């Protein structure tokens, strides 16, 4: 039977250490919030955190307490693998510092306050960081050992829908949740008319709804885009940070080459992702101005399919344009027809009837939102014999320039938009936005609420986050290899010795700095101020004689440098007060160290002015 030890044997020396370890555990749990415990690594991290808590609860000996700190570090490492965002990383850093402070408290015994321990922890981490960075940058990364399964989770996040059914929506709610952020290598956003960010392609029409067909198999030529390819965000010209979404397609501009793990490009122009969807996704688009292969992929019969009889008046109108010789002319006819039709944009269009919904919209109601216009134009074009489909994604976005950071385009769910894509034989798939025919672009979008201070702060934070993302997630295996090639050049075969040398240099630097800081912080701080002042005066050959008091020495200095008299007198008085006047009721000395330091600096400045004046005088 296990024997319970009395509380008195609980080694009271662990007081501060235990407090720090509990605090670290608490923050660890906060850092783990939102972690998907059904995933492999999320599950391991959660299990380990529970074990850590239990161990901390029952730990009695030094060895057990040490183990708790180690478990906390391993745990936070597992969390860091899954939460690379800036805020999460800062929290992870805090847990690391606390865990180390707990470890230091265990070793250094009682007597040190938690502030001192945290400062020591920070010092130790700062000292170990150069070595860590050398290793991080220079040790060649290995490829993943094998493909472990990653569990998927469903994230219920507001966003686009795979099925577009404008007729079933009576009122469109303007949801201001973040959708994505884009940073551009040029530092400038693209022109407003080019800010169409495609996500889903709806190519199947059943007379009422536009659906998305299953992605066809990928062409062989694009095998390089398949998952497993390393990310090279650093070289990309567009950096995307997309909010979690239950849709497997990501927003992008439709041009260029996607760079990112688990990404693949669909022939319809959807950017698909195979990674779990409970986290935000970070990916890059290289060369975004270049045309992508999907634009020139010829349409199939499905892109002309129209359930006959579902919207007879629409079909008849479209058929009337089919007589025009070119698709461009048919498109122009449609544009003219919409422009002359007295259409208006509204977020409260009301539902459309089940039978012939688009007939009701086009010929009776004549008001709706982007989904109505894009859907009906695509149907009209199909009826006119032009391959067409509906694309949903985001339009516009707000350009945000955070303080001291790089600008980015902020896309919200309220920027969600739908437009039509049609096949022009000489241009390929071309996007057309019929909503812009109805009202100026600014008015075609749902208005979002006012931008307050909280929003401004959030923008600044996101600016930092996007910069962090670019640096932190951008540094991968490929980036490392290119960095090594750039840094070492022909010395690359000598990476091993270079690495050892760099570690030795970093370690020696850290240790020297630590010893210097330690030596500096030792001894009497007031005395240090005096010695610094004496050092300054010694440069002017003013050195105290053996047995000379501070007052007498000050008087001797004043004889030679009378300009220094007020400052020197003040310093001597402050120093003697600091030394000899008894402490006050609060336990603080009558003169604070800060006052003494300030006075010493003032004296230093005065001396420098005097010496520079003397130099000028001599030069003159």
């Amino acid at each position: 039977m296990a024997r319970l030890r009395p509380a008195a044997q609980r080694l009271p020396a662990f007081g501060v250490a235990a407090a720090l370890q509990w605090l670290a555990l608490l923050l660890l749990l906060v850092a783990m919030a939102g972690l998907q415990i059904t995933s492999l690594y999320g599950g391991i991290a959660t299990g380990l955190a529970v074990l850590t808590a239990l161990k901390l609860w029952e730990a009695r000996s030094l060895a057990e307490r040490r183990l708790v700190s180690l478990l906390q570090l391993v745990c936070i490492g597992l969390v860091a693998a899954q939460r690379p965002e800036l805020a999460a990383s800062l929290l992870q850093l805090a847990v690391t510092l606390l865990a180390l402070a707990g470890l230091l408290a265990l070793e250094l015994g009682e007597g040190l306050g938690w502030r001192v321990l945290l400062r020591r922890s920070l010092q130790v981490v700062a000292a170990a960081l150069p070595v860590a960075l050398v290793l991080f940058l220079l040790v060649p990364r290995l490829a993943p050992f094998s493909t472990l399964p990653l569990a998927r989770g469903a994230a219920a996040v507001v966003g686009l829908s795979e099925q577009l059914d404008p007729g079933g929506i009576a009122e469109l709610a303007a949801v201001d949740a973040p959708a994505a952020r884009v940073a551009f290598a040029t530092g400038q956003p693209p022109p407003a008319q080019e800010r169409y960010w495609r996500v889903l392609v709806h190519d199947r029409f059943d007379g009422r709804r536009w659906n998305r067909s299953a992605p066809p198999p990928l062409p062989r030529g694009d095998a390089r885009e398949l998952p497993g390819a390393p990310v090279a965000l650093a070289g990309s010209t567009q950096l995307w940070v997309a909010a979690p979404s239950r849709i497997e397609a990501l927003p992008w501009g439709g041009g260029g080459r996607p760079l990112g793990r688990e990404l693949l490009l669909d022939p319809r122009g959807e950017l698909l992702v195979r990674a779990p969807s409970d986290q935000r996704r970070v990916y890059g688009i290289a060369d975004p101005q270049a045309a992508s292969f999907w634009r020139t992929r010829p349409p199939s019969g499905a892109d002309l399919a129209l359930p006959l009889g579902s919207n007879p008046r629409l079909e008849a109108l479209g058929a009337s344009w089919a007589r025009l010789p070119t698709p461009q002319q048919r498109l122009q006819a449609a544009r003219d027809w919409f422009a002359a039709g007295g259409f208006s944009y509204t977020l409260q269009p009301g539902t459309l009837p089940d039978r012939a919904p688009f007939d009701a919209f086009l010929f009776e109601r004549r008001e709706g939102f982007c989904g109505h216009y894009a859907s009906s134009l695509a149907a009209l074009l199909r009826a006119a014999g032009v391959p067409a489909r509906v694309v949903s994604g985001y339009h516009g976005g707000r350009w945000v320039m955070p303080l001291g950071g790089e600008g980015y385009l902020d896309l919200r769910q309220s920027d969600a938009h739908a437009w039509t894509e049609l096949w022009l034989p000489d241009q390929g798939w071309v996007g057309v936005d019929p909503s812009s025919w109805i009202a100026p672009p600014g008015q075609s979008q749902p208005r979002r609420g006012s931008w307050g201070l909280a929003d401004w702060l959030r923008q600044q934070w996101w600016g930092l986050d996007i910069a962090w993302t670019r640096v932190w997630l951008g540094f991968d295996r490929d980036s490392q290899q290119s960095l090594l090639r750039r840094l070492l050049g022909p010395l690359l075969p000598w990476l091993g010795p270079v690495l050892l040398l760099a570690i030795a240099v970093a370690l020696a630097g850290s240790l020297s700095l630590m010893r210097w800081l330690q030596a500096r912080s030792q001894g009497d701080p007031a005395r240090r101020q005096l010695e610094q002042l004496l050092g300054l005066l010694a440069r002017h050959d003013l050195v105290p004689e053996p047995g000379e008091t501070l007052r007498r020495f000050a008087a001797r200095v004043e004889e030679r440098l009378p300009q220094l008299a007020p400052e020197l007198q003040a310093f001597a008085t402050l120093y003697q007060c600091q030394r000899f006047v008894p402490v006050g009721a609060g336990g603080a000395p009558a003169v604070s160290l800060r006052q003494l330091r300030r006075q010493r600096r003032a004296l230093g400045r005065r001396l420098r002015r005097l010496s520079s004046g003397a130099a000028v005088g001599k030069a003159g």
Partner: protein
Amino acid sequence: MDFVRPQQGESLRLGLRNLYIVPTRFGWLWLAGLLLLQVVGTQLQSNGPLLLSFLMLGLFLLALHLTHFNLQGLELAVGESQPGFAGTLLAYPLRLRCRSRCEGLRFGFDTAATTAPRVFDRGDHALSVPWRPQARGLQQPGCLRLQTTAPLGLFVCWTRWQPAVPQLVWPAPVAGPVRQLQAARPRSVPLQVSGGERQEGSDDWRDLQPHRPEDGASRLAWKLLAQGRGRYAKRFVDPSDEEPLLAPDPAVPFERGLEHLSERICRLHARGLAYGLVLGEQRLPPGRGPAQRERALAALATCR
């Protein structure tokens, strides 16, 4: 880890030649933990665990030096020692000179537990390390082990030192019969062996003297006080020998006899009585007070 040859001498300066350092069990666990993070970071191609594992490796390398620095340059010397009884914990005095701040220092002789970790700032320090001598005489405390695992507990750095300065150890005080010789006075009658029980106890008093505060309440003549005759202190005199010369009881083994003498000397000293000592050729004239006690116990400690 005690396989290393201990350093000898009256003082010791710690340096690369006499300091030893190896990872602790926790240090090996630490390496295992960082290896695990490396695997996770590689598997997920994630920077967080990779950087953390490298940070842990950096801390490991740093701790190797920091732990060594705690002892490097430390100067050890033996201080002024005070004698004590065998079988009890004695304080062995040490002087430390630290060139820089030394953290988490633990001291311990083979015969006693290691002290709790202590921090020493730059400068000179005096400290005493407990040890438990088993025999009387001028004893050396054995091998001192000085170790530290600070700051992170990843490495243990230690040295072993055999301080050459012995400490005087008195025989352990054990109650038992001693031989009491008559005081070295002309009228003395020699050879009266006193057992543990006396024929006339020290409760018998012979005389009265005016009571002084230092006499205490136990010596106060309460009867006289109650009769209103003033405050008098009873003066106790051992009727059999007023200033006995103590010698080991020949009936018990010599070392045991010394232990009995040690206890008797302590008892007599505590009661403020005078006593002398006869140990073979060595004679200590009767006397009282701390100096007499020290002399007597030292004689016991060093006699052959």
